[in-house]
């Protein structure tokens, strides 16, 4: 079953084409890595697929709904974690999760249970009542991820979730991603860390608004005749 199908998805801002006729599909439960240099159009593509931005032409079917006509429905079925940390710093961890959980219509009692479950998974039970402003960045990112999947979405979009985070927390973060994928959530993730790209089931590389390469990490390495995804990326960008 396919979670995302993009068909000629295009976005223009005036004369500038940020995303140029991209086509791809993502399977349910897949971890799909979305790579590309800064300004390649990754964030624009994610914003379109999560219903924040309307495409200029083309369409994408996300969780069975068209982003052109059903963006309201899509919002119920996805989670989103933006490039910027965007939980409320002046609310506690519990209050943040309660706010977003309520917004997705999770019944109060169940919401409480789910928050405690996910906090204990993060080993943050004892911090439920501390202000988000007071916890370190790495923890904030894990928290934002936990909040984004609290309502058990079909797909979660992660826009550079690990930028600025130390290697240990990054590894922990990817453990969480694997757990989520194992429970059936499709993961659509952008990153600049090529070691992370190796963890993905499939990756794609974007440049100048177009999708240039797509395949499993080993396929791409073979195709380019190199040993690491890092080399794939460098070779590709230099070309």
């Amino acid at each position, binding site marked *: 079953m396919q979670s995302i199908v993009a068909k000629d998805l295009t976005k223009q801002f005036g004369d500038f084409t940020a995303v140029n006729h991209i086509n791809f599909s993502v399977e349910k439960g897949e971890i799909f890595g979305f790579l590309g240099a800064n300004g390649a159009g990754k964030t624009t593509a994610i914003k379109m697929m999560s219903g924040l931005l309307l495409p200029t032409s083309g369409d994408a079917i996300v969780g069975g709904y068209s982003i052109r006509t059903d963006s309201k429905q899509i919002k119920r079925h996805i989670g989103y974690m933006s490039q910027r940390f965007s*939980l409320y710093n002046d609310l506690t961890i519990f209050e943040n999760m309660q706010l977003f959980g309520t917004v997705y*219509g999770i019944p109060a009692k169940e919401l409480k249970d789910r928050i405690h479950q996910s906090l204990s998974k993060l080993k943050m039970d004892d911090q439920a009542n501390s202000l988000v402003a007071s916890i370190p960045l790495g923890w904030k990112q894990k928290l934002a991820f936990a909040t984004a999947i609290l309502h058990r979405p079909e797909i979660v979009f992660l826009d550079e979730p690990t930028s600025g985070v130390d290697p240990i927390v990054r590894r922990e973060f990817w453990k969480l991603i694997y757990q989520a994928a194992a429970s059936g959530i499709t993961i659509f993730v952008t990153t600049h860390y090529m070691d992370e790209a190796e963890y993905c089931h499939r990756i794609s590389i974007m440049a100048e608004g177009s999708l240039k390469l797509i395949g499993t990490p080993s396929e791409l390495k073979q195709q380019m005749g190199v040993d690491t995804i890092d080399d794939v990326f460098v070779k590709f960008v230099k070309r």
Partner: protein
Amino acid sequence: MRVILMLIKKEFLQVFRSPLLLSILIVAPMVQFILFPFTADYEIKVLDIAFIDNDNSTLSHNLINEFSASKHFRSKGIIDSKSYADKLMKADKIDFLVEIPLDFEKHLICQDGTTIAITANAINTVKAGIGCGYVQTVIGDYLKEISENTGLTTLSNTAQLFTTNIYWYNEQMNYRNLIVPGILVILVTLIGAYVTALNLVREKEIGTIEQINVTPIKKWQFLLGKMIPFWILGMAEFILGLILMKIIFGINVQGSIPALLCITAIYLLVMLGLGFFISAVSENQLQAMFIVFFLFIVFVLLSGLFTPTEGMPEWAEKINYLNPMSFYMEVIKKMVLKGCQWADLKYQTIVLSVMAVILNSAAMLSYKDSSK
């Protein structure tokens, strides 16, 4: 419903965790009430006055003594030359110069008329105008006194037409009675427009609004979740203002308090709508602040707080039809000082309601939860 309640809870939690905002909400009205009415006062306490006495007679001396005895004037003495008087006035040493002509006494006794020259330093026109009134009063009282003492009846007839003034609704002509209710208006306006505009733009700036926008929250839910808390805060602020007004200045609301609260509630909706509209079209807090500040100054100047609206040119009066503050200012003055009731303020209530609907619709339409 659960979503809106949650949003309201979130907003209150944030307000009460922000010590700065909270102290602004509580301290601002107190400072304004304590400071403002005493600074914005048209009653002039002491005017510096000098005299040129060309007559040097008993009657001219007596006149000068009258000024010295008045609590409004501080005599800087009798000076000899006009040029020295000019110098004093240029140096801001005196506000008024009274020049008594030669043969002042003789003309008074003969009752054939004479002229006293009053020169005022009109850098501050208000001060000059009011001061001239004081000078004339002193001279008038003096002439009346002479006529009573000497029996020169025609003197008082020709020189003075005595008037008695009764000021309705503000018997002591106390400027504070006007300015204090005006401060209430300013308070409500600031909470309504300023605090809400900044609050919403701040969410844009730090990016939390993006997180809200990817959720199924509907536009109207989000705006209501913002509106209700600030509406409650605004009403609380207004009631705090009414209490301070009573405690500090002893001003009681003469009209119907329920009606006053109702109209204030509507006015707050106007200002909330304006604040949201501004935040929807601004990119950051700085822009929002400039827009609100600009509108605020225009609103206040046109509102009739400092100068009567009747004295404005016709075009300014027409602009005032778009100024919600001028309608509300009228309501406040009439309610607090004059004791008007609902029925007297129907027109203002309707206008404010229409404005509330228009501005909030504009805010709804311009707030984007997804962009094109």
